[in-house]
């Protein structure tokens, strides 16, 4: 309850801050559309030459692109300004103020701010998913929607856990402000259904940098391609990662060196 109240104050402040830079809104909408274009071009080129990617049709792949765009928005709005900013705070020492507050440090570090404009991407992503469903002339069943929501939440949790672990490394190596860029580099692979990848790449994208859980699996859920078991496994995987990342974060905190000046 108290944490909810804190959250509302945090977000109110973030929105106030964003209103100071209104021009950013238009720039963001424009960029979102451009990046969506880039993502669509990336798959369309292929469909010029073939009519199926693996066993995915064009609208089905568009759903994956929609999820890719959606999560991009989520990361930009919620992860980059929070967990992503921790690295910078560690470097200039202002992380001190997070640690001296009588509130769970992970809570503050993870949820203090939100860049609302970036949610534009999330909205566009959902729009694309809806469009793809329309093209497919499919109405998902309530069960499929249920699986989809579970997978979406699990995906969010997984992405968050990965970010938290990445950022925790900054407690040892102060100069790794680019580690989140590394994640984005791998994330690019999530624009395509994971089933098209072969061998090692697929294993990496499913279990090591589990981007499959973020884009492919929710799309599969909506298309009725995964069952209860897969959904549950995904959910359990997400919970496991959350717990592991929390442990790692706590362990890393001990190595905080608190840069002076």
């Amino acid at each position: 309850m108290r944490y909810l109240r804190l959250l509302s104050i945090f977000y109110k402040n973030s929105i106030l801050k964003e209103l100071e830079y209104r021009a950013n809104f238009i720039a963001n909408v424009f960029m979102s559309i451009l990046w969506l274009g880039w993502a669509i071009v990336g798959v369309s080129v292929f469909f010029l030459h073939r009519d199926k990617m693996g066993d995915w049709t064009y609208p089905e792949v568009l759903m994956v692109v929609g999820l890719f765009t959606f999560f991009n928005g989520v990361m930009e709005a919620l992860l980059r300004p929070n967990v992503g900013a921790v690295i910078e705070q560690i470097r200039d020492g202002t992380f001190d103020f997070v640690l001296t507050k009588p509130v769970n440090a992970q809570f503050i570090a993870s949820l203090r701010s939100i860049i609302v404009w970036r949610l534009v991407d999330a909205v566009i992503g959902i729009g694309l998913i809806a469009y793809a469903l329309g093209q497919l002339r499919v109405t998902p069943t309530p069960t499929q929607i249920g699986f989809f929501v579970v997978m979406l939440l699990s995906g969010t949790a997984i992405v968050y856990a990965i970010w938290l672990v990445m950022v925790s490394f900054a407690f040892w190596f102060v100069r790794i402000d680019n580690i989140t860029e590394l994640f984005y580099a791998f994330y690019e692979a999530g624009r395509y259904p994971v089933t098209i990848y072969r061998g090692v790449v697929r294993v990496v994208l499913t279990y090591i940098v589990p981007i499959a859980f973020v884009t492919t699996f929710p799309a599969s859920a909506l298309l009725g391609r995964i069952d209860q078991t897969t959904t549950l496994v995904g959910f359990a995987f997400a919970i496991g990662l959350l717990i592991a990342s929390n442990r790692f974060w706590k362990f890393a905190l001990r190595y905080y060196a608190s840069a002076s000046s």
Partner: protein
Amino acid sequence: MLTKYFALMRRSLGVMLEYRAGVLIWMLVNVMPLVMLAVWFSLAEDGPIGGYAQADFVSYYLLLTFMRQMTTVWVIHELDYDIRYGNLSIKLLYPFNPIHAYMSDNLADKIIRLAVLIPLGIVAAFLFPMMRYELTPLSVALMLLTMAAAWAMRFLSQYTFALLAFWVSEAQTLHEIWYAVWLMLGGMVAPLDLFPAPVAAIAKYLPFRFMLSFPVEVMLGRLTADETLLGLAATAFWLGAMIVAYRWVWRRGIKQFSAFGA
């Protein structure tokens, strides 16, 4: 000037070696060509796509990875920051144009990348024996030349976009648009041959191709002599245009900077 470059590069090298984790991560960040390779390689399993078989994709994207690494430029972030927070004033006190300081910084990074990439390239040659290139002295020389030009164009275009920070605060956003188009039309998503004919026909003459994939195309031996010559002419044209644009913006920007400060 050359001694200054060596001195500046020495310092940059020192700094980079100090932060080794950061340097290695930056290299890993440029894996997008490999991601695209994984995609096309898997997709071409059932036969060539638009004239590209699996082996062709391997040849294309592995060399493209090398190009991507060797033409990596990040000056937009540095210069935009320096202009907006007034750090440029310090660099203006150097007895030479500050662009040389940023350039030598970038070249130092290229030395480190080469040191890592050459051994990796040898390993790749063993791992992927299907790689096929046109290995003649002329094609290699042309590749090195066009690669240098690609780097210069990437650098100059970013630098010029960064200079817009003299007037607007969204220089990085404006550059992002340019960057997105570069990714699409520079041969990253797919070799330009795979694009719809009308798009490919236009993209062949736009600057983006010469900022990434052209040196690779030279090495793949898919270009006719005429196409190669035309490409070289276009490279020269765009490089010249970017130099002119940079000079023009720089001169006006400095006036603006000294008139209003930062």
